[in-house]
C-alpha cells in the first residue's frame, strides 16, 4: 500500500457566516446527493465562486465521490472555480444582441481593459464574461453590470460607466 499524501487545502472556518448559510442549505436539502446543483448554486452565491475547500466541504457533507462533484461543477458554465472580480460585466452575445452589435461591446471592453471573456484584471477589480442569452432580446444589445441590466448598450457609454465604477471603488 502506498503512502497517501493528499495535499491539504486550507480548512474552511466554521464561524464564517457563509459556511453556516451553506450548512443550513445542505441540511434543508436533507444531505441528498440529488440536490448537489442547488447546493452549488447556494455556495457560489455566497462565495462568488467555488473555492476548492468549499467543494471539499460539500463533497464530505453529501458523501459524494470528489470526482463526481468536480465533474458536475466543470460541466455547468454558471459555476466558476476562480474569483470573478469585484465588479463584473456580463455581455449578452445571444443572436439578437449579436445582430445588434454585441461584438462591438466585447471588442471595446477588450480595447479599454484588455479583458477577454472570463478574464479578470490583475488587481481583481473587474471581470468580463459573456452570456449566451440573458433573454432580454427586445432591448438588445444587453449587458449586466454588477446585477444591473443595461439596455441598448453603446460600447463607449458602457466603458465610461465601468470606469466611473472602478474609480469609485
Amino acid at each position: 500500500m502506498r503512502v497517501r499524501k493528499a495535499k491539504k487545502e486550507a480548512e474552511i472556518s466554521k464561524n464564517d457566516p457563509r459556511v453556516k448559510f451553506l450548512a443550513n442549505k445542505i441540511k434543508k436539502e436533507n444531505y441528498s446527493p440529488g440536490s448537489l446543483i442547488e447546493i452549488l448554486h447556494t455556495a457560489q452565491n455566497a462565495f462568488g465562486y467555488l473555492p476548492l475547500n468549499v467543494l471539499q466541504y460539500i463533497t464530505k457533507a453529501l458523501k459524494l465521490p470528489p470526482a463526481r462533484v468536480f465533474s458536475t461543477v466543470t460541466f455547468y458554465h454558471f459555476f466558476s472555480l476562480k474569483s470573478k472580480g469585484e465588479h463584473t460585466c456580463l455581455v449578452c452575445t445571444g443572436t439578437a444582441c449579436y445582430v445588434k452589435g454585441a461584438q462591438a461591446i466585447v471588442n471595446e471592453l477588450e480595447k479599454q481593459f484588455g479583458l477577454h471573456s472570463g478574464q479578470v484584471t490583475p488587481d481583481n477589480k473587474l471581470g468580463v464574461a459573456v452570456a449566451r442569452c440573458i433573454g432580454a432580446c427586445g432591448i438588445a444589445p444587453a449587458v449586466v453590470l454588477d446585477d444591473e441590466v443595461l439596455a441598448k448598450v453603446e460600447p463607449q457609454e458602457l466603458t465610461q460607466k465601468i470606469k466611473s465604477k472602478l474609480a469609485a471603488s
Partner: protein
Amino acid sequence: MSMTKLTLQIDGRSIETESGRTILEVCKENDITILTMCHLKGITDVGACRLCLVEIEGVSKLMSACTTKVADKMIIRTSTEKIKRYQRITTELFAAERNHVCSVCIANGHCELQKLAYDVKMDHIRYPYLFPQCEVDTSHPLYVLDHNRCIVCTRCVRVCAEVEGAYNWDVMNRGTNVRIISDFNTPWGESITCSDCGKCVEACPTGALWPKAVVQGQLNKAPEFISDLIEKRKMKL
C-alpha cells in the same frame, strides 16, 4: 422478468433469441461483427462512441446496438455502405481529436484504436488535426495517464465506479475540452480515492492508461479480464 423467445433478422440472417438482450449481445453470440469502443462487457453501456450504430427497419434514426434491446421481428442491418462510411468518419475524428502518434505510443501494436483504423480501412484522415495541448500525469507510483491518447470512452470511469467501487475517475469540462480526472482534478498520485487496483488500466483501449513497468511494444491489455471478474462476482460460491 420472464424471457420470451423471439425471432429477428440481422443482415439477412434469421436469428432466434430471447427478449431482454441488446442487439450487440445477440450479434456477438452469432459472430456478427459490430465495431465498438466505449463498450466493455459487464459495465453499463452509454452509447457514446456511436460505432455500433445499426439500421433498424421502420426506425428513422440509427440506433446504438449496445443500448438497444432486441424485439420480435426486428430487421437489422449492421454493415450497409452508409454505416461503413460513418464508422470511418468516427474513427477519423477519434484520431484527429487528440495526439495519437502511433510510432511513439506505448500501445503501438496493442491498441484498440489502431485496430479500429485497420477495420475501417482508414489510410489517412481527411479532417484537420486539432493538436490540443494535453498533459501527461506521471504522479502515480505505478501507472501513467496520458491525455494525448485518450478517446474519452469512459471505460475507466465506469470500471472504477462500478467494479472497483472507488470512483476515482470522472470527466470534467465539456465539448472537446473534456478530460478524465481523478478526484478534484488532483494528480493521480495524490488521489484519496484510488485503490491502485489497475482495473482502469486494463479497461483502457488505447495508450492513455498504462503501467510504468512496461516498455514500448510490450503493453498487452486484457479488458476481457474485467468482464470475467464481473461474471465471477455474480457467482454464489
